[in-house]
């Protein structure tokens, strides 16, 4: 099976495409620098709880979300900061949530693994692996029933392929021709275990067994991800049924920030290969420059701006107050 790659001609001589791909670059850089700040906060013991970094996988969230509309829905995962940012969340309120502050997206009650934001269609990150497959499929059901033209995207890691509920909802989505796209981010590791040790058969075969339109894409190539996602989203929106996108990618950090000694499950050479040869931001930068869409200075400027944005966002979150303890019993019931 061949992995889809982007059309090398795409974007040439088209101002709107140029804007799109520069925007995609900016979004990936913002996610990378957001996660750098998270790593910094966590290792300095300024962030409570756990931090699961998305670094290395940026092209998947950005490529997919560039194929969506603001009102479309997403569900996310424990490794969800990239999805939230790509869908339009603001870093200051995200950092505030990560620090448990009242200004956070969930008033400090959700934390890193539960960021949700109705304004950007984010139904919420989920700390149960595979926990949101029903929610995303249900949002697609409502969209179809209400005829509002929305699509739901369910992001999950390849670890969620072990959950039976995924197969229940894919069956239902195809039976009912729901406008949902299942995006399997295959970063190779179910926590500390290589996915080939947990996954019989093929990944696409599982989706195709239910008749879903399924394809695999190079998850380090943001243009390829966007092209594939747009095709699947467009047909889902048109009522032609659900899609399944496997994006092959890599998690640069450990399962969480504290997962430092990783040699027992993956080699340093493998990590080095992905970071040096397969980095989605560098690959896209080279393409932008080769196409004449950008030069090194303009790309560096994007990084400078993104870094300043993240530094300011952290400052905002650090200065923001904690919620008052009287809020602990609020929001249990609507």
């Amino acid at each position, binding site marked *: 099976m061949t992995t889809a790659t982007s059309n090398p001609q795409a974007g040439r001589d088209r101002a709107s495409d140029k804007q799109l791909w520069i925007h995609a670059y900016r979004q990936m850089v913002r996610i990378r620098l957001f996660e750098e700040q998270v790593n910094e906060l966590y290792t300095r013991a300024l962030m409570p709880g756990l931090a699961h970094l998305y670094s290395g996988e940026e092209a998947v969230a950005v490529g997919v979300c560039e194929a969506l509309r603001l009102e479309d829905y997403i569900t996310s995962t424990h490794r969800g900061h990239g999805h939230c940012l790509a869908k339009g969340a603001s870093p200051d309120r995200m950092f505030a949530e990560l620090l448990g502050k009242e200004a956070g997206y*969930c008033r400090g009650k959700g934390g890193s693994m*539960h960021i949700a934001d109705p304004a950007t269609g984010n139904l919420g990150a989920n700390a*149960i692996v595979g926990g949101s497959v*029903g929610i995303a499929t249900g949002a697609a059901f409502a969209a179809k*029933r209400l005829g509002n033209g929305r699509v739901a995207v369910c992001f999950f890691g390849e670890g969620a392929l072990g959950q039976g509920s995924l197969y*229940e909802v894919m069956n*239902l989505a195809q039976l009912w021709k729901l406008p949902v796209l299942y995006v399997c981010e295959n970063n190779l590791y179910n926590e500390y275990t290589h996915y080939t040790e947990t996954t019989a058969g093929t990944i696409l075969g599982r989706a195709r067994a239910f008749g879903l339109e399924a394809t695999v894409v190079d998850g380090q190539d943001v243009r390829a991800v966007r092209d594939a996602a747009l095709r699947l989203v467009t047909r889902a929106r048109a009522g032609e049924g659900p899609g399944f996108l496997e994006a092959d990618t890599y998690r640069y950090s450990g399962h969480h920030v504290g997962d430092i000694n990783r040699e027992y499950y993956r080699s340093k050479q493998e990590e080095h290969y992905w970071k040096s040869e397969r980095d989605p931001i560098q690959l896209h930068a080279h393409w932008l420059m080769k196409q004449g869409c950008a030069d090194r200075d303009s790309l560096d400027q994007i990084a400078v701006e993104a870094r300043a944005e993240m530094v300011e966002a952290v400052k905002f979150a650090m200065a923001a107050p904690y919620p008052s303890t009287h809020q602990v019993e609020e929001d249990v*019931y609507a």
Partner: protein
Amino acid sequence: MPERELTFAQAVREALAEEMRHDPRVCIFGEDVAEAGTPFKVLSGLVEEFGPERLIDTPISEAGFTGIAVGAAMTGLRPVVDIMFGDFVTLAMDQMVNQAAKIHYMSGGHWRVPMVLRTTLGATRRSAAQHSQSLHAWFSHIPGLKVVLPSTPYDAKGLLKAAIRDENPVVFFEDKMMYKLKGPVPAEDYAIPLGVAEVKRSGDDITLVATSSMVQVALGAANLLEKQSISAEVIDPRTTWPLDEAAILASAKKTSRVIVLDEGYGRYGVASEIAAVIAEGAFYDLDAPVKRMGAMQVPIPFSPPLEDATVPTEETVCAAARAMCKHQL
């Protein structure tokens, strides 16, 4: 004009039909809910009026369709999920406990999950260990869920309408042995607020706090006790959460003796919780320790004499009440 009577099943169906007429967002998900009208025939006829678009037959995938209902509830529908036997809720627990119950809180109040999960409870139907349990205590334990246990056709209609209109996930337990029970049900629209107990029978000597199937048992026991000059009050919380603690405590203080009857397991169960509420709130008004009666701590057996031994009956409740009262009366 004589009062109109419906069966418990008809009352449930009428509540659903009225809410579906009144609100196009209401739809029903479940196994064999459309043409079959469920194995208990509770939903018979609804598909003729509302069509398969709103009575949505699903595969046997409780986790899948319950999860879909959670997502649909968040995004503009008001789903009612039908889980045929209460025992099957185990298959949908993550969707109810980790998702539906927590989404409003985890999102800081931004998302809502206005859905109802209807299911059944109750033994003595000769259905053995995997079709007979009363598992409502599990849901009552979880913040974010509401739990409703109607005991009459009148309550079934009014409580179900309130549950469907509620902005929160509500778990609604129907005693499958009660589906054919008849009682007065007004044809007009009415909703019974969740969290309001009702005194089903007034009395002075002892309080029987009873839920769902046990309300009928308690009423029967009260009749037996009356013949022995013991005046029993029967109070039905109607919802285990929110729980009308004030009404329960008022009755306990009035009679000074309480038996709590609930068909779930007593160990760490609803009866235990209500007994604790009474112990904390009415201790100095009591003349006897609060007694719990519920299912025996065994898987529900198939053999009829064994099964019948596992649940309280009018006779066992009457005997327990007499024993509690004998020294004082």
